[in-house]
């Protein structure tokens, strides 16, 4: 398993797999499947995949511990960047196609419409995370600062769910499902943090936990 996760081919394959939604969208477009309101279709499609990739990215750390596969970390950066990639498609569809660069209308919407305000905030917050995703930037910032900055993904995930929840008219099942998923992923982190703190208090001499160690059943 370790060899599989460490293989550069696994990473390359995942890179291609993450492009499948985009390929699917292009396929739908060329086979006339976008429906009577294609712009809204593309907005919803890219929005769906943004929030999915945010959830997948947030799932990496819990899965590393639960499955005891620390090597999964190798894919987290790419998954996060894909979340940003689909967010860019989502944002530019709204900005450049739906509103056709009508800056006045766009600025008004960002200020006035809470669901757009939170969606836009989430998108803007993703930019520094994408920019500081390179190894060089991690070194430049220092690991601690970098980690602190990238905790913004928790806020982004919550904002993304709120954005979706405030958008729908009455059938809230899908945004609520994402809400539950994000809540679970964040609560797991709270649980892990509490557990680690207890452990540190119990064994003050133990080395601080840097990367994931297999969970001990205590």
């Amino acid at each position: 398993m370790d060899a599989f996760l460490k293989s550069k081919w696994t990473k390359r394959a995942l890179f291609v797999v993450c492009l499948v939604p985009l390929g699917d969208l292009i396929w739908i477009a060329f086979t006339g499947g976008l429906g009577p309101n294609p712009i809204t279709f593309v907005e919803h499609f890219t929005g769906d995949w943004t929030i999915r990739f945010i959830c997948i990215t947030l799932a990496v750390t819990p899965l590393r511990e639960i499955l005891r596969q620390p090597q999964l970390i190798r894919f987290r950066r790419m998954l996060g960047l894909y979340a940003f990639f689909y967010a860019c498609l989502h944002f530019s569809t709204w900005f450049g196609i739906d509103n056709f660069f009508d800056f006045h209308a766009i600025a008004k919407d960002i200020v006035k419409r809470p669901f757009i305000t939170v969606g836009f905030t989430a998108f803007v917050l993703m930019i520094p995370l994408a920019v500081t995703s390179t190894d060089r930037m991690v070194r430049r910032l220092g690991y601690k600062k970098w980690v602190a900055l990238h905790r913004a993904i928790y806020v982004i995930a919550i904002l993304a769910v709120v954005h979706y929840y405030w958008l729908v008219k009455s059938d809230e099942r899908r945004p609520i499902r994402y809400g539950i998923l994000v809540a679970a992923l964040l609560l797991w982190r709270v649980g892990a943090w509490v557990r680690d703190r207890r452990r540190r208090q119990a064994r003050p001499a133990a080395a601080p936990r840097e990367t994931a160690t297999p969970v001990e059943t205590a």
Partner: protein
Amino acid sequence: MLIKNKPDLTYADITPKALYMGRRNFLLGLGVTAAAVKLYKNLPYVFAAKPTGSVPVPLNNIPLSKYTTTGEKITPEDDVTHYNNYYEFGTDKDDPAKNAVNFVTRPWTVSVEGEVTRPRKFSLEEIMQLAPLEERVYRHRCVEAWSMVVPWIGYSFSALLNEVQPTPKAKFVAFQTYYDLRQMPLGPEAGIQLPYVEGLRLDEAMNPLTLLCFGMYGETLPNQDGAPVRMVIPWKYGFKSIKSIVKIKLVSGMPPTTWNLYAPDEYGFYSNVNPNRDHPRWSQATERRLGEFFRRKTLMFNGYGDFVASMYAGMDLMKWY
């Protein structure tokens, strides 16, 4: 003299013979892939039972109404039948077309009751014959900021009211949609209270533009568009134009309406199309006409102000949204 031109193509540009010969295989492969994908996507329908619901039948020789809207390009019928808000059949736009195929709308009864001198239960055939059917092209503006242009078939709702004769106590008309879990199993997931109810002020109901509608595009209504009988109120947001009506009640007080019950700050009783009064969550200043790339400006009363504005004279339409 020997003129030496640099050739446009070199040997390096020549397509390898195997590739050239393989192009048919490549095309064949593409075709097979496309067919396989198509088959896969249609698989649920291949094994699905034959639809058992009512289907549209032609309505012939329907004259064009004097109230028809001119100068608008009619939206393709396929768009109007595959982009629906009919939450009893699912909340995605393409759900009603899929889920209403088994909806049985015959026989059908419409009960007209309440503050009327002659309350009566109409069969569909009876109510369809109360007045001559006519075709009316109307702009249709959804509260979600998209719009379309539809050639509806029906008659002015006032003809029905004249038949049943409202009493002096009647001030409003309350409408109710059919609701049956066996026919509409997705209803409980809609998030709104069902059966769907709507309402109009009596003068709005009497306005000649207010249409009791039985068909569109030369046929009776498809299930997903509100078969067998619906309202069309072209100067109000689409959700006011209630579908699949089973009950019409004349009442003295303002009746409850479904979307207003769900979110009173977002959907008012009147819900006239008004570009100046935004939905709290999105702008109503512009709309996207189905089939068009650019948004267009939304018109006050959806462009029907000449017919309807006088009914709201002196009313603060920002307050009475």
